[in-house]
């Protein structure tokens, strides 16, 4: 496995913020909100779950150290082989959820 990019497996992400806090180059941005869990059994107390709104990696800052991949307790990040595509502006190197889940 070559370290070309980092892929997000969105279903595994719990928005726990661990990757964003461990990132030495501060390139991961996460936005999330809480929603009540809908299908609870009758009588159960209300509980909430975190819902991921935004997960972005700024590839112009990322130094491909892989600490986020190592630290994620839910295996929501993994290495992808294909390198990040070049861009004509640094702002286009900020990849959002739809780009990150697509990294091959």
């Amino acid at each position, binding site marked *: 496995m070559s370290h070309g990019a980092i892929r997000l497996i969105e279903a595994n992400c719990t928005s726990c*913020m661990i990757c964003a806090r461990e990132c030495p180059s501060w390139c991961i941005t996460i936005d*999330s909100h809480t929603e009540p869990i809908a299908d609870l059994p009758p009588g159960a107390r209300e509980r909430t779950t975190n819902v991921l709104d935004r997960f972005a990696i700024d590839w112009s800052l990322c130094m491909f150290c892989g600490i986020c991949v190592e630290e994620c307790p839910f295996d929501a990040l993994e290495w992808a082989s294909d390198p990040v595509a070049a861009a004509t502006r640094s702002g286009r190197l900020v990849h959002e959820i739809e780009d990150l889940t697509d990294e091959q």
Partner: protein
Amino acid sequence: MSEVSRRVPAAEWHDAVAAAKAEGYDYFDWLGAVDQIGRPGEFSENEFEVMVRLVDLETDRAVMVRTVIPRDAPRLASIADLFAGAGWHERESGELYAIEFVGGDPRRLLLSDDYVGAPLRKDAVLAARAGIEWPGAKEPGGAPSRRRMVPPGVPEPEIWGDRDPAAGDPDPEQVSESAVGGRVRRRRPSTGSGDSTGSGDSR
């Protein structure tokens, strides 16, 4: 390979290295330094540790010669006359910790001439980070954070940065605490008014 460690006083540094070379440890491996600020116990509060690793290739053994020098007067005899290659390592450690290797080459090796400071000292602050928002400050779920989140490498404003200029220079040991310990710290400034419970500075 058998490894031994020798701690020597700074005054005997050059002699100890020369003695090790005479014993057959005649291959210079590397020389480096560690900022041991805030490590009471093994070290006094304010010391750099300098170590050199020498190898005896004939009999497959190695020695680590270590010494400590005070942070506020970091001077040590150069060993470049014993091992010419050590001169490069001394220039590197010298500029990164602002250690003066007496008798060595005072020129910089890696840093540019206009660089100010000693970046590997633990009280060197990542100043550019103090001014930008840390992505890890947010809480899961986006709720407002009840605890104050401080990123690694950036001290709290009370200690460094947004503080009273009349208070003098920041305490290097308090500044250096931001570089070590847990990534996410919940720490009350130890300058607090006699609050004996405010010792939650571990992680």
